[in-house]
């Protein structure tokens, strides 16, 4: 029975870690965003506002949870649960260091992809059941966005899996011992990052929140603890994607001198900060542009990437050829984008011919 106890303890530890992380991430995002925008961010609760998230969480827990008139009761109540559960379940198999994991799975990567997909259903349930048109639009956008970006995300992961010949995150990290996969296949990394951002709905892909258009999307009507559950799901996912990026492409917990956990958390937080930085600088794409990006660029590119990796593996070529091929493909992919953009470079505004205007006669 001791393995059951062990499993339970590990689960509780991971849950506690996640709750703490979410609170910290929210604080961190507000602080970093504030500094980028020349503000201080939260300052009033404890030194540097470190307890701000705790205060917010307490407030949310105590707040009345409202259900709009005409909302579909059960679906409305179940939505947040369906959204947050898979987000937490994913962490069963994400290691924080060698052996520091609830359960390393043989099918780890596949498990993560499969389970996280269900989370979306929760958001769509929320959006549909709220009896609010913004929520409905948000739900439709959520569904479209998630389905579209699941494909490039999975294909980008597939590249790593093919190289590592394993779906277990532990194995994949061990495989990257001399060179991280970032060097071996930068294209997969880029695809993963873009698709990951879209799955997280962070800028520039925060289409289904879109506060300034559909005022928060599927969660418009939620309040109190149910809203907090969505929020928690989002930040857990943010951390998960960052951790995955670190594990799959940056060599995970491998690194000199420092303990494993520190290395992994450092790499993970590098991604978190990068994502926050994007939020502070990039406007939002439109839904059709988002779809075009996925289906016209990312998906074909991802398939080509898979083919190249297959060739590389089949003919057992040296590692640098894959790096080169990957970079070359990324470059080729940028050409149409670049031409597309350069045609749209901002034209200088002309100024009126200052002499030639007939003036209207008026009192001089």
């Amino acid at each position, binding site marked *: 029975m001791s393995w059951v106890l062990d499993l339970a303890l590990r689960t509780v530890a991971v849950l506690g870690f996640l709750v703490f992380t979410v609170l910290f991430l929210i604080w961190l995002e507000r602080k970093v965003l504030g500094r980028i925008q020349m503000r201080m961010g939260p300052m009033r609760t404890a030194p540097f506002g470190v307890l701000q998230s705790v205060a917010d969480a307490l407030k949310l827990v105590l707040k009345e949870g409202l259900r709009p008139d005409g909302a579909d009761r059960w679906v409305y109540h179940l939505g947040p649960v369906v959204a947050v559960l898979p987000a937490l379940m994913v962490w069963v198999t994400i290691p924080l260091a060698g052996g520091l994991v609830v359960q390393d799975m043989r099918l780890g990567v596949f498990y993560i992809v499969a389970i996280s997909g269900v989370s979306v259903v929760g958001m769509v349930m929320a959006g549909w059941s709220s009896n609010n048109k913004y929520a409905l639009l948000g739900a439709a956008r959520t569904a479209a966005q998630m389905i579209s970006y699941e494909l490039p995300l999975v294909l980008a992961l597939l590249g790593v899996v093919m190289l590592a010949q394993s779906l277990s995150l532990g194995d994949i990290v061990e495989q990257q011992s001399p060179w991280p996969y970032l060097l071996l296949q930068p294209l997969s990394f880029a695809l993963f990052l873009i698709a990951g951002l879209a799955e997280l709905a962070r800028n520039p892909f925060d289409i289904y929140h879109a506060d300034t258009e559909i005022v928060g999307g599927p969660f418009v009507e939620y309040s109190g603890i149910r809203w907090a559950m969505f929020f928690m799901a989002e930040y857990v996912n943010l951390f998960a994607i960052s951790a995955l990026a670190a594990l799959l492409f940056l060599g995970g917990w491998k690194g000199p001198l420092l303990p494993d956990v520190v290395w992994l958390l450092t790499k993970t937080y590098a991604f978190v900060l990068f994502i926050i930085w994007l939020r502070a600088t990039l406007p939002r794409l439109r839904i059709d542009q988002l779809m075009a990006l996925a289906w016209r660029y990312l998906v074909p590119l991802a398939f080509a990437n898979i083919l190249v990796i297959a060739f590389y593996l089949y003919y057992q070529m040296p590692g640098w050829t894959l790096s080169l091929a990957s970079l070359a493909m990324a470059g080729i992919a940028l050409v149409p984008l670049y031409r597309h953009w350069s045609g749209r470079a901002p034209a200088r505004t002309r100024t009126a011919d200052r002499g030639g*205007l*007939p*003036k*209207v*006669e*008026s*009192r*001089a």
Partner: protein
Amino acid sequence: MDVREPGDRQQALAAAVDKVLAQFHPQSEFIFDELVVSLPPQAVKAACQLARDDADLAFDYLRCLSVVDLGERRQVVYHLYSTRHRHKMVIKAALPADMPAIASVTSIWPGANWHEREARDLFGVTFEGHPKLTPLLLWEGFPGHPLLKSYPVSGLEDRG
């Protein structure tokens, strides 16, 4: 320069206006630097059409449409401007206060749309042929027309 002294260009414009709108018997005068043309209400729409389409006048821009409550009459005032020649003109038409109605000019300048709706709200002037003459600033069923001189300023708290 005396502000009441029209310049050469304005004299030329006045002559051109008199010629183009001759059939409507316009009465024109200068108020400061503005050429003001008074027309009978039923002639306004046709005159506006001519003023816009004539190559010498080319009043393509309706700058402002106002109504003035003159007691027994309500005066509709069109401030026109030409982006081609950069000259300006004012058309005025006086409507009877008991039946204030005039043809809409939205088909000539789409920009007259809200001006006319606002004028109907605030002065009760009907613009015939307007595509959608519903209340713009006031709510449906608002009693009266607030900018008429007869509309009291205070004592209406209970009318909601």
